[in-house]
């Protein structure tokens, strides 16, 4: 303490910082324009490890910007003090559903009822992921044995696969969901195009595995050995032997990331070639200190 004080004295900081902080606070509460058209986002926690929520939070200032200008976090057991699932524009659901747990089953149905867009956030919600390996028999709910991806209980609109899903993809989907619901015609069209492949993944099914690469890419004559699958695998189960993916299938945790990431699973020619301008739009939307609405 003594050292810190002496440093402060030398630097002439004594007693000043608190005042500066207060002035800043007053400034920050003055809103230039009232933010009226924010969308309502909720995070619904099913059986997951909270890693997806941590990923959402890992957007750091980007998350603050999203919550300042584009979305209100209306439900989130960890971050918002709300008991019951409210009406939402976008529900980000983390985790799979334990079908022996009545409350979970009710919650996921309630989420569907009250949300315009249901997003499966992460691989457990999308594909079951590691919860596929549950055999139950553990204290203090040994009967909690069967876990299903949310798509086996309700209709799901968008998948964000990944274990954990990358913060940047969550951010992109959040920005695009905002543009889809509140943007002008051009922005709506762009958001629709951007989200389509993630919506197609949701329609495709509720199982994910390295086998998807075999069945739907290699066996279909589409693999060109770029190596993306190996980079996306969270457990390093994929190596490339003579330029083609080989999966250590016992290591595979069924997250479905390799298939989603593969440029030959989907490659939307109306979006990806525009990478430069779309990246600029997303970066622009998240720029600090400016408000778009």
């Amino acid at each position, binding site marked *: 303490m003594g050292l810190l004080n002496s440093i402060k004295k030398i630097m002439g900081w004594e007693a000043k910082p608190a005042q500066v902080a207060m002035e800043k606070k007053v400034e920050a509460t003055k809103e230039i324009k009232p933010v009226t058209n924010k969308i309502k986002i909720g995070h619904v926690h099913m059986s997951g490890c909270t890693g997806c929520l941590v*990923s959402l939070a890992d957007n750091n200032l980007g998350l603050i910007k999203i919550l300042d200008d584009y979305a209100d976090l209306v439900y989130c057991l960890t971050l918002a003090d709300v008991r019951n699932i409210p009406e939402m524009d976008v529900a980000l659901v983390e985790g799979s559903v334990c079908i022996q747990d009545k409350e979970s089953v009710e919650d996921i149905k309630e989420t569907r009822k009250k949300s315009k867009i249901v997003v499966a956030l992460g691989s457990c919600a999308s594909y079951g992921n590691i919860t596929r390996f549950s055999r139950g028999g553990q204290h203090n709910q040994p009967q909690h044995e069967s876990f299903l991806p949310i798509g086996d209980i309700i209709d799901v609109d968008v998948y*964000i*696969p*990944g*274990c*954990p*899903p*990358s*913060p*940047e*993809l969550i951010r*992109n989907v959040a920005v695009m969901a905002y543009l889809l619901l509140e943007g002008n015609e051009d922005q709506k069209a762009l958001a629709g195009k*951007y989200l389509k*492949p*993630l919506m197609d993944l949701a329609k495709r099914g509720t199982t994910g595995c390295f086998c998807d690469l075999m069945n*739907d890419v290699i066996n*279909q*004559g*589409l*693999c*060109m*050995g*770029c*190596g*993306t699958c*190996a*980079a*996306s*695998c*969270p457990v390093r189960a994929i190596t*490339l032997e*003579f*330029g*083609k993916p080989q999966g250590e299938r016992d290591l595979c945790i069924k*997250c479905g*990331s390799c298939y*989603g*990431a593969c*440029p*030959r*699973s*989907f*490659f*939307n*020619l109306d*979006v*990806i*070639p525009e*990478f*430069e301008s*779309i*990246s600029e739009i997303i970066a622009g939307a998240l720029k600090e200190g400016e408000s778009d609405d």
Partner: protein
Amino acid sequence: MIEDPYLGKYISCVSARSTDREILKKAQDGGIATTLMVYALEEGMIDGTIVAGEGDRPWQPKPVVAMTREDILKARGTKYSISPQISWLKEATRSFGLDKVGVTGVCCQMQAVRKAQLYPINMRDVPDKVAFTVGLFCMENFPYKSMQSIVEDHAAQSLGSVKKMEITKGKFWVYTERGNVATVPLKATHKYEQPGCHVCLDYVSNLADISTGSVGSPDGWSTVFIRTKKGNEIWSKAVAAGMFETKPIEDVKPGLDLLKKLAKEKIDKNQKTIEERKTFGVNKALRNPYA
């Protein structure tokens, strides 16, 4: 910005050659990719770059994260086999700790990078850390054993004695250390091509920051497309620093016309393949990744 249905979007196009003699000694053509990556590394624009280095067998490429000029130079020259460059994309930001990652690769690998940036599925940190990409022109690629068949069975040369390989003027050329030159007509090599290449709709790496290849420029020179703002910035600085000699593409032979012709050939042929896949079976289609 110029937009061409076959050559993609680009800011400018020139014919160029590296001024670095050491690089040119073993470069495939104008040494553009190697020189650009060395320049970007030495100027701090990238911390390292994924290149196609030397694998365990002769002429087998292996993706390597190069962090020195020496390592980048080891990857000079074209190896006509599959190098899964993108397998290191996330690892480069993690095990290697790079904040600014360079990527060199062929067209499909540039597509993979851009997909990973826009749809980063389990690709944390990748979108913002890809700092610079150099794409190569690519007509098709060969599995390792295909290349071995072409060189050893068709051209009758031992892979270990080969100094350089090249596809140009309708032939697959094999140059050996002892000065032998053998050729195989491309008609004979087509069947060895990697099947995944036949649905590829890109010839000149449309999605790279800068793309380059021999086609369109005289021997020893390369055609260079500068495509993005980032690419333009790095190219301008590199030229200003004297890294390249350049000529307007309009002044060289055979020029853009040949490039357009080949690009059209590849893309039209592969479009047709994609069409044919729709009616491949009896009321059964093969999957279309672009649908």
